[in-house]
């Protein structure tokens, strides 16, 4: 099964939307080492620029509006993700436990919807 590991941290620790603060000198290499350790199990992954760089396109009743900022203001923000292959939830949780964090944070573990059979064949 594939699982998305969504990384939520208070983005203030990263030193601005480009996340180039001093903490990255430590956190960057840890992510690099972690993705290396994941090897084949890692299907995709990236860090995201801060929510200051976020734009939200909202559709309400068929009408679309553009907003500055993330879809919701929260204490911790989505800051990056890993897409991993894991046998079951326990295996995915075991990987989630090891995702590097700057300080406190949360990793949301979400299974991917399976690809509908027709679409999977076309790929």
């Amino acid at each position, binding site marked *: *099964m594939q*699982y998305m590991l969504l990384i939520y941290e208070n983005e203030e620790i990263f030193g601005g939307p480009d996340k180039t603060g001093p903490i990255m000198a430590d956190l960057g290499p840890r992510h690099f080492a972690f993705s290396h350790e994941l090897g084949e199990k890692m299907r995709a992954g990236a860090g995201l620029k801060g929510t200051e760089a976020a734009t939200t396109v909202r559709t309400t009743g068929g009408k679309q509006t553009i907003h500055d900022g993330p879809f919701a203001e929260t204490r911790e923000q989505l800051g990056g993700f890993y897409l991993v292959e*894991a*046998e*079951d*939830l*326990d295996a*995915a*949780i*075991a990987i989630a436990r090891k995702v590097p964090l700057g300080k406190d944070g949360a990793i949301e*573990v979400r*299974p991917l919807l399976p690809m509908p059979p027709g679409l999977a064949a076309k790929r």
Partner: protein
Amino acid sequence: MRAGVLDETFRAAGGRIRAALAARYRDLDLAEEAFADSCLKAVKAWGDEGQDLPRDPAAWLYRVAERAALDRLRRRRIRADNRPNEPEPAPTAEDRLASDDAIIPDERLKLIFVCCHPAVGPDSRAALTLKLVCGLTTEEIARAFLVSETTLAQRLVRAKRKIAEAGISFEVPGPEHWAERLAAVLSTLEVAYAKAHEDAAGSSRHAGFAREMLEVTALLCEMLPREAEVLALAATIRFAEARRPARMDAEGVMVPLAEQDPALWSKPLIEEARRYCARALGLSGPGSRILQMMIHALWCGRKTLADPPPWKAVLAAYDILVELRDDPIVRINRAVALAEVKGVNDALAELDALDGTTLAEFLPFHAARADLLARLGRDREANTAYDRALALSPGEAERLFLLQKQRLLLGG
């Protein structure tokens, strides 16, 4: 008469059959529905008085439930694909084996681990275990959990969906996840037993529920005979159940542990508890569940009301326990023992050192405080503490007890 026999058969066989089906098809709903189908067929086939039950009713139910599961799967596929009915698949070697009268594969341990996965909310875990492993009805569980049947049914649906969608495996966890997964099973059973224990009389309609807790812990010990904490929980539940006949007086008022007449305690249950207790102690040093078991064992060692209560030893056990598990309930229980050994003032100081705001809604805190204040003659404060405790909807027996104490205070 016959209905009672059938219910008993269904209840006894249900956990094992649901577990076998769930492990085979990796689908909790399917397992429940197929077993329900087979019970309906059983009522038709052998429901009338005078008809003979099959030699092995459980095996009969399992075979029929298996067929029902396959039927349901086929109907689902047809609904999904809108294809004509396919012929029934020829039984595989595994099917033939599983259809043998004597063999219902025992997958209950897997089912327990699935229902108690830490990714499922704690209350839902307990409810799901009681439903699927112990075979309680939604109505019975809802009553024990003090929620409406609709709420509980929704909770069960959500939990089952989570298990299906999140990829929780139907396997006994491997060594790297063992400790955490076992801890989740034990805490689930503790939550479930706490609900059964709240009913002091065991007389409300979920009276059978405590019995199911005895069964499920016995089962777990049989399957995990070398896990000290599993044995300790089994012992603890038996010690606690043994005291049930003494927990209420004739008027339905709660009797505190130290005032219970040991002559009323169930000796066979205490004996059983001691056997589990000895096995647990043979396997492990003091962990928090071992200590809780020991505290129960100390109390259940009392032979008559004339024996002095074991407060000193109980306090010593709480002193160690509080190092291992520092939570309010342990602190409060320790303070109660402290009052008997060192004095009421010391105990009250302990309680008042706890964070009163987080405990504002915690009944045992106010009940313990009220008692200590009353014993110090601080009647007005005691009265307020009793009011607080009573406002937190205690069970009927405890409510009567608190009211009685409060009335004494007011000189009534």
